[in-house]
């Protein structure tokens, strides 16, 4: 039966595998070129324009332009990375069930000496196997590429999925979802449309509503005068009132009442912020020391502290694992639902 499932999906599988190979090859080339150019730029006398090099500006500028040019295709690679998993899952899913039911070839298959459960298991097994086989190297290359081009943004909408292993879970989720939709709708076109809508809905709402709750955020309170290891707090700068860890996913950064329960909100901060800074401004601030002193006094007067709420970069893989497990669990439920529907279909 595995042969039957493979033969049925062979053409689309080969086309999608070829597409993935092209994306992988292009991504490797792009990543290698940009990594080389970035390294060259950072090792130039200007150290990536961090050091002023009078008389050597042309070289640095040329390297910067070269790096920019090499990054021209980055948006396309990100889009390809975001699209390949759902595309693969949807195409294989729609082919596995909706297409067979619509073309009525299930009448041929289901009148042979095999059960519908076995028929479905073979379809799911072959489809899921190829989703994994194609997406694991894709995810690996995408993750490498994100690092190779010097991207430090791990949690951005266009980065998070392609920077980790959720690409594979995404593909399996969409595959199972399309199996379920195909078994319910039984028409290729409508199944594709419904799968696309669900994909967009999940892609838009999941990061903003679910993802941030998958890992307990770190809440860091600090007085203006506090020092953190290796990172001094900046006095009096409203846009960076506290230490912000590198590459973290920041939910909140500002001042909040010490009595705040849970994660402070920007609305709460906006209520107290003018009072605190009004207080600070009433003190004489001829020197930095004056400002520091005024800030300390006003923070104590209003009982506020600097606070940053974030998910640190070292939680990235934990987040990926948990989100991936959610996709996989949902995928298993969808596949189970599809099987229930398939057993009821009267072709």
């Amino acid at each position: 039966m595995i042969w039957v499932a493979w033969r049925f999906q062979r053409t689309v599988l080969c086309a999608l595998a070829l597409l993935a190979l092209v994306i992988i090859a292009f991504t490797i080339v792009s990543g290698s070129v940009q990594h080389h150019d970035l390294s060259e730029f950072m090792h130039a006398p200007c150290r990536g324009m961090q050091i002023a090099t009078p008389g050597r500006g042309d070289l640095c500028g040329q390297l910067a332009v070269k790096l920019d040019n090499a990054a021209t295709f980055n948006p396309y690679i990100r889009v390809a990375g975001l699209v390949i998993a759902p595309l693969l899952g949807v195409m294989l899913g729609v082919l596995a069930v909706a297409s067979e039911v619509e073309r009525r070839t299930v009448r041929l298959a289901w009148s042979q000496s095999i059960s519908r459960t076995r028929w479905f298991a073979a379809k799911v097994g072959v489809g899921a196997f190829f989703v994994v086989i194609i997406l694991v190297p894709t995810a690996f290359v995408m993750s490498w590429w994100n690092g190779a081009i010097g991207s430090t943004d791990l949690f951005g909408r266009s980065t998070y999925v392609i920077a980790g292993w959720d690409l594979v879970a995404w593909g399996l989720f969409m595959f199972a979802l399309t199996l379920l939709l195909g078994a319910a709708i039984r028409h290729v076109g409508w199944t594709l449309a419904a799968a696309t809508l669900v994909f967009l809905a999940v892609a838009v709402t999941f990061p903003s509503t679910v993802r941030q709750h998958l890992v307990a955020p770190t809440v860091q309170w600090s007085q203006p005068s506090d020092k953190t290891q290796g990172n001094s707090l900046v006095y009096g700068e409203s846009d960076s009132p506290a230490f912000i860890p590198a590459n973290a996913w920041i939910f909140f950064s500002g001042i909040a009442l010490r009595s705040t329960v849970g994660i402070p909100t920007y609305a709460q901060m906006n209520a107290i912020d003018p009072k605190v800074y009004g207080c600070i401004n009433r003190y004489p601030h001829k020197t930095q020391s004056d400002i520091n002193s005024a800030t300390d006094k006003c923070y104590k007067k209003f009982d506020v502290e600097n606070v940053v709420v974030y998910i640190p970069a070292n939680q990235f893989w934990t987040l990926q694992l948990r989100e991936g497990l959610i996709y996989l669990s949902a995928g298993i439920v969808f596949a189970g639902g599809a099987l229930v529907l398939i057993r009821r279909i009267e072709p």
Partner: protein
Amino acid sequence: MVIETESLTKRFRRRTALNDCSLSIPRGRVVALVGPNGSGKTTLLRLLAGLSRPTQGRISVFGEEMSTSNTDLRARVGYLDQDRPLYERWRVREILEFGRRTNPAWDPAFAARHLALLDIDMESPVRNLSGGQRAQVALAVCFAKRPDLVLLDEPASALDPVARQDLLQNITELFADNEASVLMATHAIDDVSAICDYVIILSQSRVVLSEDLDYVLESHRLLSRGLNDGVSVPRDAVVLEERRTTREITYLVRLAMPMERDGWRIERPTFNEIAIAYLRDRPRSTSTLSVTDRGESGAP
């Protein structure tokens, strides 16, 4: 009995496709399932093939309850769908490989021999085959699983007369080789007398006749007399159809026993005439026709 159904009913939302059908089909017969469009032939075959579930009643095939999950029983039943659903992009060879991998009792030599005799190229994609060739490939898949019961839904539809004749000839030969029971739904009543020995007539979702073809032909007669002869139809005859000309009246009747000439001109009707008379009949309250249920309603 190879097939037994009891009060079998299938509804699709508001439409009743099959209504209270009770059937018993003996083993080793080539059975014609005759009826107009929408009479429930395809629905009955799909229920028997385990593709569909009855709304009410039960289906027994070889003494076992047929269901969508009874794989062992389905292994003994070959089904040819009226749409001939085959994988369009596959080669004929791959279709046979599909059959081999999905049927434990698959006979590869039979399938290859059958298609070779018909000069069908094994490497040809299914989409390049003619309607007749497609039907033959589907038939090969159906028979090569070595079923004990073959269900054929309009096997000769959409074929030209030559292809149709060849297909029916093949079915006869395959039946002879396999010794399987065959249930064949057809619109073409002419096909019935050519290859079938048992007949079921469905009309308006009900079974109106289910009997041996020979018995059907023996038990029906055309009775003719002049319009003013004043002879009445025998009491135990069921009048199925009445035809009038300016001088003569003819009844197609079903007889419970041989009758005396008694002023009538008696002729044997063709199966075509009998079938059409049943198909034109009004819906009946019982699923099968009884000899006495019409009484003399059609008699003068």
